[in-house]
């Protein structure tokens, strides 16, 4: 039974406030530069959150995630440019294509476990980037895809329409997509399905002995995460308007991995916090000649050795210690 105090718990209020803040930001931030950063934060946040489902909750280190981001982006770009499709059907089709390829790769790669899975998926990532780079008749190769259109306007029933040409309108589109991703993943994690994901993370053999079909469950988690990676890729393609094979490179995968690790793997907010923090810091530091990826490398090594839970895990530990609830 939900009591009033549970309904208005500080955590809920904080989340509501954050969502409210997210929706009102374009009213007091008008600079195109800051809006651009916010849009990128939302896009990377979506990708990292989806990676968190397979990696954080299901415990499978999928190093092909950037490839799915790239597949979604390229699928949407090609459908719109080569077939002249409208944005919205292209979005749906691109997600389906990503899922179909995710199914093919997942069914092969998920037979392996642990570091073999990580290495196998990493090879898949390289293969996909090489294919995008070399299949010039389809993907234009290293020249890249130019001029991917923005989403087409949605007509409203009482006249007028929603357009996506301005920065704030695109910001709302990615923000709503991000919230949708978070909502879906939240619902999954707090359902029986999410429990079975976590059971597999804990101990695959034990989970199987309890009647969980490990392969099917892992594949489902894999597919859901690829769909959202594809969705983030579609939105990225339409926002930037240009694609090159680097967008599916394993460096992109590593960036998602770092977002997840720094923020806190296996927590809902962690990857989001990691993506926002690192995107803001790296965009603001763009003028300064700091080798950004070297700093990322150090951060990753230090996190994995000293702060396994990332920022969120560290904060939880601190909170437990401060509130004296630490189990001894």
């Amino acid at each position, binding site marked *: 039974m939900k009591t009033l105090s549970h309904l208005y718990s500080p955590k809920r209020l904080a989340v509501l406030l954050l969502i409210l803040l997210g929706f009102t930001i374009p009213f007091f931030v008008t600079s195109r530069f800051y809006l651009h950063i916010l849009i990128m934060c939302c896009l990377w946040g979506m990708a990292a959150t989806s990676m968190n489902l397979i990696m954080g909750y299901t415990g499978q*280190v999928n190093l092909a995630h950037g490839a799915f981001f790239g597949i979604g982006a390229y699928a949407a770009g090609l459908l719109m440019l080569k077939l002249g499709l409208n944005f919205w059907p292209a979005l749906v089709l691109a997600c389906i294509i990503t899922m179909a390829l995710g199914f093919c790769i997942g069914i092969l790669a998920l037979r392996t*476990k*642990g570091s073999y899975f990580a*290495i196998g998926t990493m090879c898949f990532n390289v293969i996909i980037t090489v294919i995008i780079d070399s299949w010039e008749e389809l993907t234009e190769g290293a020249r890249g895809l130019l001029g991917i259109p923005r989403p087409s306007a949605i007509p409203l029933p009482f006249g007028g329409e929603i357009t996506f040409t301005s920065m704030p309108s695109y910001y709302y589109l990615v923000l709503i997509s991000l919230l949708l991703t978070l909502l879906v993943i939240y619902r999954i994690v707090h359902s029986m399905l999410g429990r079975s994901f976590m059971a597999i993370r804990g101990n695959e053999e034990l989970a199987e002995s309890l009647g969980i079909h490990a392969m099917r469950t892992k594949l489902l988690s894999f597919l859901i995460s690829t769909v959202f990676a594809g969705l983030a890729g579609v939105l990225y393609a339409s926002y930037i308007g240009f694609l090159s094979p680097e967008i599916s490179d394993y460096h992109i995968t590593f960036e998602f991995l770092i977002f997840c690790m720094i923020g806190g793997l296996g927590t809902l907010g962690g990857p989001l916090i990691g993506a926002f923090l690192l995107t803001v810091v790296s965009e603001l530091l763009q003028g300064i000649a700091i*080798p950004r990826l070297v700093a*990322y490398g150090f951060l990753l*090594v230090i996190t994995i050795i000293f702060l396994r839970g990332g920022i969120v895990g560290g904060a939880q530990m601190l909170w437990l210690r401060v509130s004296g609830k630490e189990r001894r």
Partner: protein
Amino acid sequence: MSLFIQQVLNGIMLGSVYSLVALGLTLEYGILHIPNFTHGALYMAGAYVTFLLATSLGLNFWLAMVISMIALALIGMIMERLVYRPLMLESPLNSFIAAIGMIFIFVDGALYLFGPDFKRFPPVHTQIVQVLGTTITFQRIIIIFVTVTLIVLLHLFIKKTVVGATIEATAQDMEGARLMGINVKRVRMMVFALGTALAAAAASLIAPIHLVHPGMGGPVILKAFVIIILGGMGSIPGAIIGGFLLGLVESLSGGYISTSYHEVFSFGVLVTVLAIRPTGLFGGKG
């Protein structure tokens, strides 16, 4: 026929480099269970050290290579001590993620320090040799020769010396080795020193033929992983045979089919093997 022999010789040369890299990796992965993805970045670092010593200081190529091997062995030991030792008792996946972090440090550090451009090595042994009707440069023959020497030396070291025996004992049973009074921590550092020194040697040997650049380790390390997964974790003959085999396959398919997809081909082999036998051809546990 001339093209065939040319490609076979090229394949053997490529294969020697792959064998050396895979040997280091199989020691680290097979014996210590550390998926040391940084190995490729250290390979790149080895090439840069040799390159800088040979061009800026004007050292002799062989001296530069030996110094590079020693320097990289030290870096490998430091890396083991600082990064992999704290993760020793945990899932190999954590070491894997730490390795990815170190790839960033090395590769993008090199990009920052030396720039993205390809460095051309001053030619070392450009004499031309006639072999079965085809001409090849002397450097290629030297690569094969040095590789064989290094492999024989490694074999003698592991099989004939007491220090080498401690490595083998640790590989067979870490607990048992510790009970016998073997300092496992020292063995770990030694294995890393050996592995990275071999990678530095491979990179230095190939550097005068291929070019030196920050991204040179990426494809090599993935191929080395292909080799050790196919050849069996920790198996030294597996790494050697697998290395030569992959070099030959790659050079022949590059010569007769197409060069742009040869990476797809070798990773395709790996992915297929993993799909059929999820723990590798000779792997027991995952």
